[in-house]
């Protein structure tokens, strides 16, 4: 692109091109406001890290779903199936690798984890491809049918998990090196949470890179805004959509793996549990916006942890209250994605 950036002439005034920064402040404000309420710094750090870790896991799961909606207006209530299947595939990989998982070697631990994540990501990616072709494609453009049919897909997936892995609760083996906490002074931070934050940040950075620096990414952003015009420029948006759907499914499988490691147990219902939060997050973030989804996930997860500590009785409704508050401030979510 260097050859095509002409110099700006100084005499002309630039139009207002200010970035919309207010949404960036919500999570920090929440964190600062929670400190005096929580009272103790070590407790606040623990809650904050727990919130950040949970937020990152939700973001990893939700990021693909928000783009799927943005690109093709597809409401996929079956996204939870990829969370569950991913977690089960990872578990299936980790159980026979028990020797590596329990070994005192960080590298063997990480190798086991990498294989589990690969199994989850590839498996859910393939499943996502089949899901798109068989379940979603026949109902493009028909929201009511999409809801019914994708929910049906979720039920089928949950039943298939029962059939393959059994209906009982499973243990999710957490590798040795990720157990326990890192201690800074009188503050203890669980190692797994640090890993979850790192993975979430990596996924976010990777997505930003793809969305902003590659032609595929430009096409996705353009397609979220005006898919018809992308087609009129000669690009097949359905192929793009299938690619995004598959990537989003694989990310849900990755996120489901993290979530199950975090809980150290899993059942077929794991997908449904997380999906409520995921839907709240993509609505708060602004449907179709990856940045908004990232911020929304942080806000929801931080609030869930602070409220769970400060006022456990209202923990269940706190997510809904946050969603209502944000939508009153910005009815389209934190970031409005321009639509045609």
């Amino acid at each position, binding site marked *: *692109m260097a*050859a*095509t*950036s*002409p110099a*700006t*002439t100084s005499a*002309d005034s*630039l*139009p*207002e*091109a200010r970035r919309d920064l207010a949404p960036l402040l919500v999570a920090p404000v929440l964190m600062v406001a929670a400190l005096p309420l929580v009272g103790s710094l070590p407790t606040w750090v623990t809650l904050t890290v727990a919130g950040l870790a949970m937020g990152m896991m939700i973001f990893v799961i939700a990021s693909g779903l928000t783009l799927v909606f943005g690109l093709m207006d597809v409401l996929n209530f079956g996204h939870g199936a990829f969370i569950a299947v991913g977690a089960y595939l990872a578990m299936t990989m980790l159980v026979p690798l028990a020797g590596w998982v329990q070994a005192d070697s960080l590298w063997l631990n990480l190798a086991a984890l990498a294989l589990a994540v690969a199994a989850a990501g590839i498996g859910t990616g393939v499943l996502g491809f089949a899901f798109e072709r068989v379940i979603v494609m026949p109902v493009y453009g028909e929201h009511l049918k999409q809801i019914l049919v994708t929910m049906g897909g979720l039920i089928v997936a949950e039943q298939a998990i029962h059939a393959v892995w059994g209906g009982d609760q499973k243990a999710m083996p957490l590798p040795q090196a990720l157990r326990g906490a890192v201690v800074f002074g009188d503050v203890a931070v669980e190692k797994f949470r640090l890993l979850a934050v790192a993975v979430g940040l990596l996924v976010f950075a990777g997505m930003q890179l793809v969305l902003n620096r590659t*032609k595929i990414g*430009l*096409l996705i*952003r*353009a397609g*979220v*805004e*005006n898919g*018809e*015009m*992308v*087609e*009129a*420029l*000669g*690009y*097949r*948006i359905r192929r793009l959509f299938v690619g995004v759907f598959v990537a989003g499914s694989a990310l849900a499988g990755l996120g489901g793996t993290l979530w199950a490691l975090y809980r150290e147990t899993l059942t077929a219902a794991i997908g449904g549990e997380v999906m409520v939060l995921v839907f709240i997050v993509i609505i708060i973030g602004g449907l179709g916006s990856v940045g908004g989804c990232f911020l929304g996930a942080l806000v929801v997860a931080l609030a869930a942890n602070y409220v769970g500590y400060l006022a456990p009785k209202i923990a269940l409704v706190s997510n809904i209250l946050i969603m209502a508050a944000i939508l009153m401030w910005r009815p389209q979510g934190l970031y409005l*994605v*321009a639509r*045609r």
Partner: protein
Amino acid sequence: MAEALLTLEGVHTHIGQYHILQGVDLTVPRGGLTVLLGRNGAGKTTTLRTIMGLWKPSRGRVTFAGRDIAGLSTPDIARAGIAYVPEAMGIFSDLTVAENMTLAARRGPPDKARLDWIFAFFPALRRFWSQPAGVLSGGQKQMLAIARAVVEPRALILVDEPTKGIAPAIIDNMIGAFAELKREGTTILLVEQNFRFAAALGDTVAVMDDGRVVHRDRMAALAADEAAQTRLLGLTLDAHQ
């Protein structure tokens, strides 16, 4: 007259249960600029969208460069060599001007010489090259929409009311750009209500009413015949002049 690049024969288009195009017959000669006139709601935009495959014709034939394109998907029609500047411009406001142009250039990065050519007519695009297209004024967005359509040579460009709400100075630049495109051999089908603009550029003209083409002529002949203008275009014309 030159051979036809685009021909519509008996094209019917339904939108939902509405029967909008009711047998459109239209010929766009190669290398010329054809103006499509007609009052509001006559079906001009629907005609362009049907050519582009954004509406599927329920009946009739659309022939482009000897090939029936009526059943093709929109991306395939675009790749056959047709560019489209829609009435609403279709700018990607989240993307920068540069990124909008990058997407429009399918073969690779936009050609430097071609960009200079575009900037000569539409200098604002150079100025705001790295800005999100959403911050452009209406006229600048229209320049960008046209620039996207011409960043690579295309056989046919469909342009829907580019002068609507645009300042006269920009309109003059548009006339210059379209005139040079014509000289390059680009064929243009232009929907236009601004008669001065249409008359300055048009070689042939077709007038639509109620989902049909009701009159075909050389543009110069219609421009000289005020009675025909009033009969065919009525008040719409004065309102837009």
